[in-house]
């Protein structure tokens, strides 16, 4: 799952919870999923080391 996907799902869950549509049993599950997504996003931001690689050039024919 990419950062973008995780972030989008997390925000959708928060909106769903805030709108009061979810029933209480679902709310717990949504909240747990939200926590998991938040952790995932943070990991993507913090633990992913930036990397710079050089592409070996092809000599023009």
């Amino acid at each position: 799952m990419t950062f973008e996907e995780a972030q989008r799902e997390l925000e959708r869950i928060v909106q769903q919870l805030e709108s009061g549509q979810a029933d209480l049993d679902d709310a717990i599950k949504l909240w747990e999923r939200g926590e998991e997504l938040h952790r995932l996003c943070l990991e993507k931001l913090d633990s992913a080391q930036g990397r710079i690689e050089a592409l070996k050039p092809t000599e023009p024919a």
Partner: protein
Amino acid sequence: MASMKVEAEQYGDRKVYSVAAFNRGVAGWLARLPTVWVEGEVTELRRQDRWQSVFFTLKDPGDGSCLPTSMPRGQFDALRLELGNGERVHVYGRPELFEARGELRLRALSIERFGLGDHLAALERLKQKLSAEGLFERGRPLPRFPRKVGLLTGNDAAAKRDVLTAITTRFPPAQVVVAETYVQGPRAAPALVTALQDLSAVAAVDVVVLARGGGSFEDLLPFSDERLVRAVASCPLPIVSAVGHEQDTPLTDLAADARASTPSLAARLVVPDADELRERLSQTRSRLHRAPLLLVERKRARLDGAYGRLRALSPRATLERGYSIVRDSGRIVRTGAELHEGTHVDVELGEGGFGAVVEETR
């Protein structure tokens, strides 16, 4: 030139020419061709006072085709062009065979320097042509979270370092693939085309930044080269052109999907701001934390509301307001006529009740 009889020896049924005769024959044919203008770049210019002619090679800046050229030294000097290698010229001349070596060359009668004005006019024509083909209409959205950023840049350190710094400062986890190549001179355009193709073929590269620092008009010419402009326009990935400064508009700028006049603007276009992401994430999390409590409160409020309405509708609430219910043998009494003197009735109050005997009816 007088028509030339080229003698061949006869060996049986085979006609055989000497090298000299062959060259003379070809030279004669070439001499009939018209005098024309040829455009190219001066390379390998050789001039010596003791030589009768000045020699140079005219090179096609497009594909590197070469044409040896010569001009009588006196004529060359009289033009006072002070030509240097790499300069673009128009040469007026005709083809000639240097018979002693069997080499074709252009015999120059006149040379004109191809000036800035000519460059600009040629560029403008190319711009019109490519524009008419619809090559300048790209503006595809850039990915917000590219998996990898391709950076195509010169082996001059500054532009590369500036863009890399801007990208990694804004988004430290950025993955960048750097392709370095020539960005100046006649080799630049084909080298850039090849490098662009190589970069866009790298797995997970989602966007390409084409970066080159500022330079003179001539320095930036490869970025207006038709081959590169076409390669940019047909590249399957979105491209950000970060070439030169604000005032420069190489044609790659027009063919690219977005244009950045500084390295930090380029970075802003291709990677998200990590600090902003973190801030937004933390706000989202606070909302997530408040949400269940909010949800419970909301459910409770709804429950309370429903219960309140239920209560308001019940007879008990009416009794609490001071009304009472009178029953005669369990039946609710609604009119005085239902009763007569001496009837025993039950009276129910908001709290408790009592028995009573009717004294009179009305």
